[in-house]
């Protein structure tokens, strides 16, 4: 499963980019493991994963047309 991941806020300081393409990602647990292996600094940072604009809390299978985003704590307003 190939997934495109949007990256926001302070997480972009770690990744250096706001979009990332990853391969062989069948579910969100694999996504997190893969991200942490590429960017170990992410383990020091709190973030949530949004799948199709909803924050998910448990491992979720990724389908073809998923919209994936990494969200650090919000600081709007």
């Amino acid at each position: 499963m190939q997934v495109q991941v949007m990256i926001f806020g302070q997480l972009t300081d770690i990744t250096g980019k706001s979009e990332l393409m990853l391969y062989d990602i069948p579910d969100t647990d694999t996504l997190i493991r893969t991200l942490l292996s590429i960017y170990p600094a992410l383990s020091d940072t709190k973030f949530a994963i949004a799948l199709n604009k909803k924050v998910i809390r448990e491992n979720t299978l990724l389908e073809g047309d998923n919209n994936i985003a990494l969200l650090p704590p919000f600081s709007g307003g």
Partner: protein
Amino acid sequence: MDLQVGKNSKNTKMSERKPKNIFSKGPIPASFIAESIQKHSSQKAIGGHSIFLGQVRADQTENGIVKAIDYTAYEDMALEKMHLIREDIFAKYPLTCMHVHHSLGEVAAGEICLFVFTSSAHRKAAMDACEETVERLKAELPVWGREIMEDDSHQWKVNQ
């Protein structure tokens, strides 16, 4: 006034309705706020307006003094979330209308980055709805503020 529609169509699927945009580039000018107030003079059932304005503070931090905040958002998700907040607030309070505007991009210290405006026949609903909307949008909207220091270094805003 379009929000009245939202109130009466709670079972409509989100995908069938386009959430209202709340984002605009740069600071929110005082003249825009005045125009928004002025537009309500034709709505003669309104007795009270409550307005909250967020202004960028020149905070003194260990990394220097904040001279501006650069806002980014996951816009699609933020607009859907704001739409849900709006529906909750309209279901809870007898509002005539609600308007929300949030800046994207750079807003200098002293400038306005958030404008929440609620109106109702009696003051209590407008005031309570405004406060609850501000609290919810700060907690729930995927928006991030990058504080730009006077030496052009940056740090990320943390909401209280």
